[in-house]
């Protein structure tokens, strides 16, 4: 069995990767995937802590988190599609009408 410490380290790595992805990638879909990576890192942390404390709360939270993330993705992709219809692009750097 993997020790919780290792799981936590993995989750931190995933989270860092996610943040980096958001910062460096320009494709909206990739950015979105990076965010999902961050959420999953959090889920992993929950699992690790859940095992540490031996309760069900952590795993319970993960279920909710997954559901919410799914809902968010559904809405998010809708918005991305709407934007794509107008811009014909999925480059986030094209979104700069609103500034200053």
């Amino acid at each position, binding site marked *: 069995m993997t020790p919780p410490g290792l799981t936590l380290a993995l989750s931190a790595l995933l989270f860092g990767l996610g943040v980096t992805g958001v*910062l*460096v990638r320009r494709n909206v879909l990739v950015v979105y995937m990076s965010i999902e990576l961050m959420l999953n890192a959090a889920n992993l942390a929950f699992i690790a802590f859940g095992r540490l404390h031996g309760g069900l709360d952590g795993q319970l939270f993960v279920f909710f988190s997954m559901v919410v993330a799914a809902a968010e993705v559904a809405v998010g992709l809708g918005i991305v599609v709407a934007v794509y219809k107008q811009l014909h692009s999925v480059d986030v750097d094209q979104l700069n009408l*609103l*500034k200053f």
Partner: protein
Amino acid sequence: MAHAWLLILLPLFGAGYLAWQGRHLREEQIGTIAAGAVGGSFVIAVLCWLQVYALRGGPVDHLIAGGPSWLAVGKLTVDYHLLLDPLSTVMTLVVTGVGLVIHLYARGYMHGDPHFPRFFALLNLFIAAMLVLVLGENLALLFVGWEGVGFCSYMLIGYFTEKQSASQAGKKAFIVNRIGDLGFLLGSFLLYRATGTLSLPEIVKALPAEYAVGNPQLTAAALCFFVGACGKSAQFPLYIWLPDAMEGPTPVSALIHAATMVTAGVYLTVRLSVLYALSPFASQVVAVIGVLTALLAALLALVQHDIKKVLAYSTVSQLGFMFLAVGVGAYAAAIFHLVTHAFFKGLLFLCSGSVIHAMEHALHHAHESGDPQDMRQMGGLREKLPQTHWTMLIGGAAIAGLPPLAGFFSKDEILLHAGQGHLLLWAVATGVALLTAFYNARLLYKTFWQPTRMSAAAYAAVEENGPTLILPLQILAGLAALGGLLNLPGHGLCSQQLARFLDPVTAPALHVLGAHHPFTLGQEVRGMLFSVGVVMVGLGLAAWGYREANQRMGQLAARYPRCYRPLVNLYGLDEFYQRWVVRPGHQCAEWLAREFDAGVIDGLVNGVGSFFSDSAEFTRRYQPGLVRSYALWFTLGAVGLLAALALRPAPAVVQGVVGGLLLLLAGGTVWVMRPRSEA
């Protein structure tokens, strides 16, 4: 003793009622209300005096009219208490008595004035304030009265608001008095520090018990109070406002600027006589300034042509005499002279008012324009104004010091005491006595005895004034003639009545000053003979110079311009103030307005404004509309926050290193994300 409050409340209500309803009342009603209020006060003042008189020889020497507490801050408590002791009752009698006479006179004098109610409201208010001043049990209450009379004086000097010079004179009086008020306040603070109380009886009790003679703190306090007295009582170098104050109506000059308010400084120094007794240096300053003022003002009075200005400088001079008395420790003599001066100077002013009134009338009648106050355009009025002439003659003789009139005794008393002190003081004071006789005789010659210099038509139109004006003159003439009885010299049953009555007030100071040898009969007789001789010389000189309109004085003036010019120029004191105080003040204010206000203050304000709008403009450029840059700032903040919270328990070195790295990171981000010009 609560009825003592009525002393103040009656004229206060009079003032309030006249201010409120005066417009709807007839002149007689207004005069009756105003004079009635003061008359009521006078009756109560007599009552209070009797009560205090009854204390003579008893264990208690003063009464307190209690009132509510005014303020209590820490250890400081100030109550609305009135102090009734010999000094305050004497002052009260003078203020209400002379005040009543002048109110009666003013009814006639101000007849037909468009602002009749305002005048009497202010006059009543003045009486109330003056009574607060003399009755206040503590320095705080005294200061209220002190400022109150100053305010009334300011309002009444500038009473003829349509005259530019009148409002200027009012402002001048007010501003010069501010200097004195500052001295008063500083003195109060010093005394409070020294004794921990503002109550006058307690201060008088505490000072000799706790402090030795010559204590520098007390000297400072005494000098501060003397600055206050110099302002209010017009002493050198602050006397310049009083001659200008003659712009006010003549009853005001008589009441405020001769009989009562200007003596407040003398009252204050006598009230604090212990303080001056404990400080020989301050006493010397008082004496020197007093005699110097007496001399300078008497010299100025020699060359004035305006009848009221002569009297104004005469007032300054006589006040100098009173301060001389205080300075040499003759406190009772100072008050004695204060009282007799109130009589005869009030009288002289009212007489001059009568003359001016008659002159105005005559000039108006003859359709001539001219200054009704200029003595050069008078002369020969003796036949036309017989009543005024006689009463003014009594006043002039009294102030000159002819026996047995009031001024003779009071001035002689001061000269005697001065002779005990310093020969120089005595010599100068004697010289002033000579000058006093001279300029008063000059006034009478030029006004009444010389052949008239008026046009025939105007001269024919001069008429003696009616009884409303003349009756007060006669009352005051009687007082001026008999006032000396209050304090006859010698050691008989009737001698030194006033001094003995005032003894509870002056005793602590006299005790500090040490043994006082009463004058021997020989000393007194010699002094009297000498001063009569001096007065006769002065009168003789005046007769030589002014009899029959000869030109001897004019020739003298022409021959010695170096003596004459400074007097006409008033020693250049006004110019001196103008040049060294007023103009620098103006320039400083102008510079502040132009350079400092416009440059520094406005610049600062505008600078702050543009600083913020510039930095706002700068900061907003860091929001370029790009999601990833937002995420970058977000992440930077997140890392910082994480470090801040997670590294709290870490050692300082780690915190420093991480903090430094983060700051570097932030700085780098600021640089990388710097706004670029949009190409």
